């Protein structure tokens, strides 16, 4: 989301130069500018909420170091002596080793596919104003309006018809497709904020549609793309319903399916479950850190365009 104030700088070429305004900044302004909103009180409040928000998760981690029986006799006791049995159990009984690769394969594949096709589509939908495109956009967004798990039976029959039951490819395609509405919805908003002058300028320089898209527009919406990637990765990584319904051989299961073995009919092995979740959540944290880095990088690049 930038303004026409920046347009003259953009016309200098596809790679935005660093703006000369840094030198225009008077010393006094710099000091004023770097004082964040809210000052010290704001910072304190942010950290207090951050710590407080983590307490339930810390409880989970703490409980993962105790046995389930001790959880049932004293739910909030301290994890001492530390017990790694649940981690061992989660890894073996939950078949984490095998399932990790499957999860990575399916999730990365689905998110990549979904994001790539959605970015392309969002660009077109944001740019072209024809009637058909408006209708198409509504069609895509209508996909958000029915929770996908209500359509699970038809999806199963569909994949069965294609012979894609018990196939990680089928699972990946379903996940990718389910991510398209959300991704398009968010990305069109961000694409719409880009001024049309950019494209005109690039066309004057002789860039064709594809180059323009890839080299100019996409980097400008990098924060949005990173956001979309995170919000598609996490639910797909954590989903157990589709793999349970669409996969049949154990070797193809994903990590969350392994975790469901700890849910009994009348009793749950909380300790192993928590341990498994701690392991399963670590990649998500890594992803999140990477994504926020992209978001920040994208923001600064956008501003200095």
């Amino acid at each position, binding site marked *: *989301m*930038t*303004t*026409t*104030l920046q347009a003259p700088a953009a016309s200098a070429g596809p790679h935005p130069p660093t703006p000369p305004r840094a030198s225009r900044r008077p010393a006094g302004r710099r000091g*004023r*500018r770097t004082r*964040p*909103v809210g000052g010290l009180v704001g*910072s304190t*409040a*942010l*950290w207090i909420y*951050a710590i407080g*928000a*983590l307490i*339930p998760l810390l*409880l*989970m981690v703490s409980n993962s170091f105790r046995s389930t029986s001790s959880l049932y006799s004293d*739910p*909030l006791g301290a994890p001492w002596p530390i017990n790694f049995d649940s981690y061992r159990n989660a890894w073996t009984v939950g078949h984490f080793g095998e399932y990790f690769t499957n999860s990575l394969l399916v999730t990365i594949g689905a998110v990549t*596919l979904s994001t790539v096709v959605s970015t*392309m*589509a969002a660009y*077109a939908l944001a740019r072209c104003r024809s009637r058909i495109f408006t209708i*198409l956009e509504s069609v*895509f967004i*209508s*996909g*958000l309006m*029915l*929770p996908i*798990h*209500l*359509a699970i*039976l*038809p999806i199963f029959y*569909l994949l069965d018809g294609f012979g894609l039951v018990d196939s990680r490819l089928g699972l990946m395609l379903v996940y990718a*497709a389910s991510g*398209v*509405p959300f991704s398009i919805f*968010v990305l069109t*908003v961000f694409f719409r*904020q880009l*001024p049309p002058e950019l494209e005109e300028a690039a066309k004057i320089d002789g860039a064709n549609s594809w180059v323009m898209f890839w080299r100019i527009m996409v980097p400008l919406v990098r*924060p949005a793309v990173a*956001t979309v990637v*995170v919000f598609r990765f*996490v639910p797909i990584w954590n989903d157990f319903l589709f793999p349970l319904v669409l996969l049949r051989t154990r070797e193809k299961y994903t990590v969350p399916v392994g*975790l469901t073995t700890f849910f009994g009919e009348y009793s749950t092995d909380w300790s192993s479950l928590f341990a498994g*979740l701690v392991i399963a*959540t670590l990649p*998500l944290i890594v992803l*999140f*850190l990477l994504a*926020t880095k992209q*978001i920040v990088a*994208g*923001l600064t690049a956008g*501003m200095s365009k």
Partner: protein
Amino acid sequence: MFVAPALLLFGVFVLYPMGSALSYAFFSWQGTSRGAFVGFENFVALFTQEPFTTQLPRAFGHNIAFFVGTMLIQNTLGLGIAVLLHRRARTRRMLQTLYAMPYLVSPIVIGYLWTLLLSPTFGPVNALLRQVGLKSWALPWLGDPTTALWVVVLVSAWQWVGFPVLLYGAALGGVPEELSEAALVDGASHWQTFRSIVFPLLVPAIGTVSILTFIFAMEAFALPYALGGSTGNPAGATDFISLLFYRTAFENGSTNAIGSSSAIATLLFVVIFGGAVVATKVLRRHQVRVGA
């Protein structure tokens, strides 16, 4: 064509099954065998027969209350945090990650953790309140129909606050510095700058977040299920439309389960579609593009 791949993928794997699922509502079913075409009979049953006549409006009301609550709490908090984080470049990523961590954990476990924390027998929340002398505040949070729904709203906000923080953060990044700086130099306070300059430019992002929140609130399933069970305990106070769907589809012994539950799903879809269309129209009209 840029749109083609997305359309193909989406059309085959989402649109077609969705259409099928909605079409199921127009038939009567014997388990998974489709029976005769019955037109709107399943829908009429939703408005004339128990349990739907009591449960459907009540669940719908809860979904709406959930939407309002989430807008007020989660999105306002998210915007506030995003604004606070905006200039704190050093700590921003760390804090963003911390705020988003509840989102990364499966809702089933979130439900269990909070049920334990809020338990009237074992929960530390009530124990703490009693210690501090606020004994009258040590309510059975998830057991009292008046508080249970708000607990769901709060836990959901806690889980999802990362979403508005990230999205608003990205949007704030697109607001040009010069405008706010100029205002600050002219003597405006941070608040005035925000209200007159930054906020109007955020309207598209606010609109996006709001529409997505509406859709999310109408479809909410995982967290309410984890906190209140499939019957929306206590006594239906946390019942949502998706829970009603779940019970109708899987827990009753009715052989027409697919027919009734598909009718509920279709109804839900129509409501969400209508709501989103209205919201988008309003949003488009108010979109402000600087210099455009």
